[in-house]
């Protein structure tokens, strides 16, 4: 080849390379621009509900206690998160609320709200005294002139938001919200005698409930906590793991014999091989979503449906992988076993299975971990396990602390399964597959 031709070739290669180097980023950029408009990202700012985001974040680390005065009857009730299950018994109150003829509510940093017989007084440090009196003609206040932006005033409603809490006055009721950090009543609800007692109190202190011993009583009240439903949540987590386990192992059990039929070196018959392979392709192609829908029609909601959906989908994946593994086995070992006069079943058992066990096990365990995640999603669709609890909590749009609790539990569950499957893999496939 002449030098000129070589040079031309090199030039051409450079041009090609330059085209690829500038062309690829340009194509990706163009695609992203297309997506930017196709997904209407400019309009996202309008649709986004930042107030939702704020409640979500605030709720996940704090809770509020409502102090409510019914302006018709004059009754004052105190309830955590305004829920019936978190209501203080009549006549009792937390330390920062003093019940009496006038209810005195101590918010933080010198903020104090007083429910009087006719309305309420709020002494805001650095601003002054605000009074409000609900009546038949709406809410009368002493606020005149410029209304600061933390006060929202209309004819029928007064809302004050300060760093210490929130006050809202309407004709029907006057409400004060005080915020606290943490998850409310996580261990015991208010009706439990153990509420407010610490761990040392319960373990080493005097008997709190005359009927039950401290540890059993505390455990019963914690486990049966009506607000957080620890027992139900634990059961849901278990159900999710059960779905993943049954689905994965069932799929492996179904796929293994089928994989022998689909492997070239074990089944000389082409049509059988072809048929089984198409079955695998079909099972995989239909996808977990469709299987979930089809199966939930027949089996109804619950963990069995989820397990079967995983089983059916993964039979396809396992079948494909197992048959590939079977095609790669070493014939020498099988021949060796055969030369000792072994029957076909013995040949499979001692010549084939030991060779493919490490591959099979590592794939099954990997799928077990990944199916824990799938089981969460399938549970949300069919109704079972922690996925169902999560969707329910999100749909009610109220208990965001429960949503964060479930999210934390789901992440922990997946990480534990990840760790467990890695540990089992290392234990069962001793060393010979290190690094996988």
């Amino acid at each position, binding site marked *: 080849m002449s030098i000129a031709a070589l040079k031309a070739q090199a030039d051409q290669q450079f041009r090609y390379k330059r085209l690829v180097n500038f062309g690829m980023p340009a194509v990706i950029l163009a695609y992203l621009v297309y997506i930017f408009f196709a997904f209407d990202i400019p309009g996202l700012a309008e649709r986004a509900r930042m107030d939702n985001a704020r409640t979500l974040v605030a709720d996940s680390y704090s809770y509020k206690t409502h102090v409510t005065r019914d302006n018709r009857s004059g009754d004052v009730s105190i309830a955590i998160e305004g829920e019936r299950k978190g209501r203080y018994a009549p006549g009792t109150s937390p330390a920062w609320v003093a019940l009496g003829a006038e209810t005195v509510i101590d918010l933080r940093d010198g903020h104090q709200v007083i429910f009087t017989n006719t309305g309420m007084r709020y002494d805001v440090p650095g601003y002054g005294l605000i009074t409000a009196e609900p009546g038949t003609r709406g809410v009368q206040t002493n606020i005149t002139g410029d209304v600061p932006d933390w006060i929202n005033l209309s004819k029928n409603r007064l809302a004050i938001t300060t760093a210490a809490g929130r006050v809202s006055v309407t004709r029907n009721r006057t409400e004060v919200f005080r915020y606290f950090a943490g998850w409310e009543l996580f261990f015991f609800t208010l009706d439990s005698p153990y509420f407010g007692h610490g761990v040392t109190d319960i373990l080493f202190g005097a008997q709190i409930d005359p009927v039950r011993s401290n540890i059993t009583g505390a455990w019963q009240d914690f486990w049966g906590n009506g607000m957080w439903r620890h027992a139900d949540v634990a059961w849901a987590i278990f159900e999710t793991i059960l779905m993943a386990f049954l689905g994965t192992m*069932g799929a492996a059990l179904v796929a293994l014999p089928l994989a022998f039929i689909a492997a070239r070196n074990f089944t000389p018959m082409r049509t059988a091989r072809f048929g089984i392979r198409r079955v695998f392709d079909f099972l995989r192609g239909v996808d977990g979503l469709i299987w979930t829908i089809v*199966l939930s029609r027949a089996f109804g909601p619950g963990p*069995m449906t989820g397990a079967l959906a995983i089983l059916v989908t993964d039979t396809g994946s396992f079948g494909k992988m197992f048959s590939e593994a079977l095609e790669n086995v070493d014939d020498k070992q099988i021949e060796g076993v055969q030369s000792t006069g072994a029957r076909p079943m013995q040949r499979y058992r001692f010549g084939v299975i030991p060779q493919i066990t490490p591959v099979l096990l590592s794939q099954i365990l990997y799928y077990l971990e990944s199916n824990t995640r799938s089981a969460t999603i399938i549970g949300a669709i069919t109704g079972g396990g922690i996925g169902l609890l999560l969707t329910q909590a999100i749909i009610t749009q109220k208990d965001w602390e429960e949503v964060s609790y479930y999210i934390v539990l789901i992440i922990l569950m997946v990480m534990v399964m990840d760790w467990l499957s890695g540990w089992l893999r290392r234990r069962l496939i001793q060393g010979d597959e290190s690094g996988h």
Partner: protein
Amino acid sequence: MAELTASAGSGVPHIREHYMDLIRRKRMYGGLTLAIFTLLMVSGFVLADSRNAGGFWDGILNVFDFPHQVLSEAWEKIDLLPAHLVHFFPALIETINIAAVSTLIGAMLGLVLSLLSTRGLARFPRLIPLFRRSMDIMRAIPEIVIALVLIFVLGGGPVPAMIAIALHTTGALGKLFSEVNENASLKPVEGLQSVGATWFQRMWLGVIPQVAPNYLSYALLRFEINIRASAILGFVGAGGIGYELKNAMSWGQGKFDEAAAIFILLFGAIVLFDQLSSYYRHRLTSGGAA
């Protein structure tokens, strides 16, 4: 060996006994594992069966009822099928777009994170555990969790699904990429360092060209997985073909022809991309290396 054992006194019988003992113990462990496994499977099955709304044995007889309903209704209205296919095609495109964009974003972020968390290549070696843990967490969060929360904040549509899948993809690909990085030769990197290249230049010119085929192969596999994920997320409200499927399904009888059309589209898309990606992956791993 023979002399050694012979001189030990007890001789062959002793060895055989020892060997049989080992075998017995091995068999016992094997049998025990099998028994525990069987027990777990059976009790799990019974438990799941009792917790399910419909029992297993009732359900197994009715498995084909629903497909039969869908197929017969679709067959009655076969003339409408092409129109349905055309009607739902844009939704399919949206689902595929969600998968593609989230794979793209996830691969790019995963690339950066994997380089930052590979020993020998990391820009900040002390922060390696931090980047690794963050990838672990991203991988552990199921997409549906992020998607549901984001749907609440951002409203329905493709963006929550895109972000959710992209985050998960970042974690998953980041881990695979960093495993690839560990096998990359450091010689080009050292060569570049000796001429004063910055970290970015070392990675871009020294590492990426070595690992690109493997990266692409993993990203294609992930794309295939993400199409399935984005269809599922549509079902919980994130747009695309899954959302249309949910609508058709919740309508129930009378719209099963639409459901059938969506099944066909989804099945076709999954099989198509499955074949495409396995073809290209095969080319990248066998042909690309040569």
